[in-house]
């Protein structure tokens, strides 16, 4: 670093009220969704419906964290899709392994 830059006046900008308010709103939404998840956890019976609700809410939360907190929503489209497209592999991995798991479960337990 040159000495020149050290002596430069640093101008501190005032807080961006709208931006900060938006961040707290996102935090509130995340908190609400988590609270709702708790509600579901103790009022619904275990089953596919419950799991689907949890998965959907988790994806919504993930969307808020990645989009707003990590600002991916505001990045250039190329960057956005470079991150999002590879994620689809995970969905395939999940389907494949769960299918395999349930098949194994049939083999291991249903004969007894």
């Amino acid at each position, binding site marked *: *670093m040159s000495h020149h*830059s*050290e002596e*430069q006046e*640093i*101008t*501190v*900008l*005032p*807080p*961006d009220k709208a*931006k*900060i308010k938006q*961040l*707290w709103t*996102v*935090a509130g939404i*995340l*908190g609400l969704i*988590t609270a709702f*998840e*708790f509600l579901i*956890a*103790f009022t619904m019976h*275990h089953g596919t419906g*419950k*799991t689907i609700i*949890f*998965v959907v*809410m*988790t994806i919504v*939360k*993930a969307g808020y*964290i*990645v989009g*707003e*907190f*990590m600002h991916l929503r505001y*990045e*250039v489209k*190329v*960057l956005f899709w*470079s*991150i999002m497209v*590879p*994620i689809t*592999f*995970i969905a395939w*991995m*999940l389907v494949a*392994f*769960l299918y*395999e*798991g*349930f098949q*194994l*479960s049939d083999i*291991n*337990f249903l004969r007894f």
Partner: protein
Amino acid sequence: MAHATATTAPGQNLWNGGVSPMGASYGKLMMWFFLLSDAFTFSGLLVTYGFVRSAHQSYQGAADVFKFSHDYWPIPEKVFEAVPFLHGISLPLVFVGIMTFILIMSSVTMVLAVEAGHRMDRKAVEKWMLWTILGGITFLSCQAWEWSHFIVGTETPTLIKDFVKGEWITREVFGANLHVNQYGPQDFADFFFFITGFHGFHVFSGVLLNFLIYYNTVTGVYQRRGHYEMVEKVGLYWHFVDLVWVFVFTFFYLV
């Protein structure tokens, strides 16, 4: 290091797409792709958890008469129901809910530090980084408590039948480690240690990085550099740690 766009002369076209086709500096871009690879690692762990769990028998009876057994996968809320200082009271998932809240809050303070950095507001960056570090340390402490509780186990043991040297014996098992598990199949304990442990290690590294950022902010390194992009990069990592916890919370504790 200055912004990539500032180091080349105007009109100079280094790549076909311009100097920085993704509109982000090298460091930020590499953080994004590192996090993408890390997302695959965590997915690997969580999907394997789903695979092994679905290959096991699930508990069929009523939830209120649930008992720990090696014969089926445990209901997570029956395993994680202890809260510090409230010994003997069944509070399912309350403590892990508090941990989730702590991590989300520390993510908020982190993004506020990033916002302050964009405004070159050193004092505000220091303040929010300290809150973030505090949140991280609190989370780790909670996890340490949860682990020790999980390892020590409940007051009444689980009776586990074992086939040893040609005959069946019944053992009393307290708690869990990588050899025994009172809560259910051995795999359940192993996944608990590996998934929450791997995440906890990420939180630990995150706290170290956050402290480094805090130190550099206090000593004025970023002030002299002219931008607080390092706060943003480490912030990305910290949010990712929060993101992973959201998934761990759902797939390990809720489902």
